[in-house]
């Protein structure tokens, strides 16, 4: 089990218009897969400062900074859910972003609602993808790295196709990591520090 599991509560923050059912599904999966309690924090509007007007996408790093600036009581890990498309400066898009070994992560539901051919996915597909991305980013918060096992939840997936190919489960190695004593956070210094 995750060390000091009883001390952790995952706070879910809806940023923008997020269907209530998605929050419930993700909450259920966090409880089921990580055995961690969740709480729904007050919903927020999309912070316009995070919008890149040239790209018409929201900067995932800035949204994480925004979440950091909000004082959420009683939650050790915060997961923001955004309806809009996210990016980090070097990438065209990301499905989610998290601080490795940190406390804040964000996921985007924007691309999870459609199939590769542009048609709308079924609700079941959408919920399952949402749960996968949420559990993946939470894995990073508990200091799991990207995994080589192409079936593992921690395997990197940048497209809906690859996301659908991974299983809704951590591989034994990642599961052992979550269940064992946690590795110390990788980097306590910033990229320029």
């Amino acid at each position, binding site marked *: 089990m995750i060390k000091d599991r009883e001390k952790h509560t995952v706070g879910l923050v809806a940023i923008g218009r997020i269907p209530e059912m998605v929050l419930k599904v993700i909450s259920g999966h966090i409880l089921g897969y990580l055995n961690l309690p969740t709480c729904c924090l007050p919903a927020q509007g999309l912070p316009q400062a995070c919008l890149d007007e040239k790209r018409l996408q929201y900067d995932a790093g800035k949204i994480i900074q925004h979440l950091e600036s909000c004082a959420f009581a009683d939650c050790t890990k915060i997961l923001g859910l955004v309806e809009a498309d996210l990016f980090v400066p070097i990438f*065209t898009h990301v499905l989610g972003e998290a601080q490795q070994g940190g406390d804040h992560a964000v996921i985007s539901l924007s691309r999870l609602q459609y199939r590769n051919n542009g048609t709308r996915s079924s609700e079941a597909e959408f919920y399952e993808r949402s749960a996968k991305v949420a559990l993946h980013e939470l894995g990073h918060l508990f200091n799991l790295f990207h995994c080589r096992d192409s079936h593992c939840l921690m395997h990197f997936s940048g497209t809906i196709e690859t996301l659908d190919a991974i299983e809704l489960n951590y591989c034994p190695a990642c599961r052992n990591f979550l269940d064992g004593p946690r590795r110390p956070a*990788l980097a306590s210094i910033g*990229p*320029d520090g």
Partner: protein
Amino acid sequence: MQDRMRIMVVDDEMIVRESFYHWFNKYGHETETAASGDEALEKLERRRFDLLFVDIKMPGMDGLELLDHIKARYPETFVVIITAYGSIESAVKAMKSGASDYLLKPFKPEHINLVMEKIFQQKALKAEYQYLKNQFGEMTRFDNIIGESPAMTRVFDMIPEVAESDATILLAGETGTGKELVAKAIHAKSSRANHPFIPINCGAIPESLLEDELFGHIKGAFTGADKNRQGFLEIVCGGTLFLDEIGEISMKMQVDLLRVLEDRKIKRIGSNQTTDVDFRLICATSRSLDGLLTAGTFREDFYYRINVIEIRIPPLRERKEDIPLLTEHFLAKYSQQTTKHADRVDRGAEKILKSYDWPGNVRELENAVERAVVLSKSRTLTERDFSFLKAASAAVPEGRSLIEMEKHHIKAILDECGGNMSQTARILGINRSTLYQKMNKYGLHRNMD
């Protein structure tokens, strides 16, 4: 992802550095960043990096200039160039300058994974190549010949000098002195190093077979010649042919080889057609070729043709100061090859090793150390582990001539007396000057150990 790597991201835009930094952290890579080419070079000076992501457009030193510096100073470091759309030309230029790949930003996340996968493959191939190169170097490297005695230093000094020329070399030395190792070292240092080195022991091959081995044959040349076959003189093509125990070849073979050396052409057995050959010849002998010349069993013209440069490899008894170094080398070799961990010899064992005459030279020492390592039960080899050498030294081999018996006897008494010549002469019943003359004649030295 496979191994973790040490990565540096060089970009003047902090936001790009941050993005890469966080991305690589998610894979467990150790990541550092630099805001300029100068900062990157400073960091490279302090520690080794496996991979650098370098932005092509930076104020001051640009990515291409940095790439040139990296490739000149740290060629083992992989570099991936980051560029914006519209700078493809620069990216191509970077690839030509040694970049491993390039990324057009912004890129899809899976693209960076593909690039990383490619780098991992290149890294694995490089490591494999390095391993094989080391293995090959192990077989041919110059320092495989161990010794720091003045006698061996002279040989070491000659190797690079003679390697540069294409002159035929005669290596003279007793059996087991390492003639083939010297020949390999000359080959490895020469411009022919990338071509074959073919050693042939002339003493171990019957004459008819040796001719076939060297010259090859055509189909039907003799009974059993059911197809054309190249000889080593052709196969060696551009390399070095090492003929060991050259004193053993027949007069006819000497004539044949002399002709090859003169004309650089051969005819396969049974063929009238000539083929050009290109090789360097190194010969070796453990017998005195002068003696063979006198006896008329070795042709003078062939002798002078192969003896353009003569290198004498000293026997081990003439360079006993190398014995501890050689012993240490063989101990390390056999401790590694066997499950035994003997890694030192005590003073008693060292004394035995130094006082023994080593008629079989370095090869005999190697065998002795191997035997001692295999049979030893402790980490330190003692006098007891080398007791078989004492027995061999004391025993008078059968079938030797009177001269050899006399030499052996004088040596044994000299050793027994710890090199004291007066005492030795008294025991032998001869005077000191006679003893001195005989010692000179037999090449005996006072062993003060």
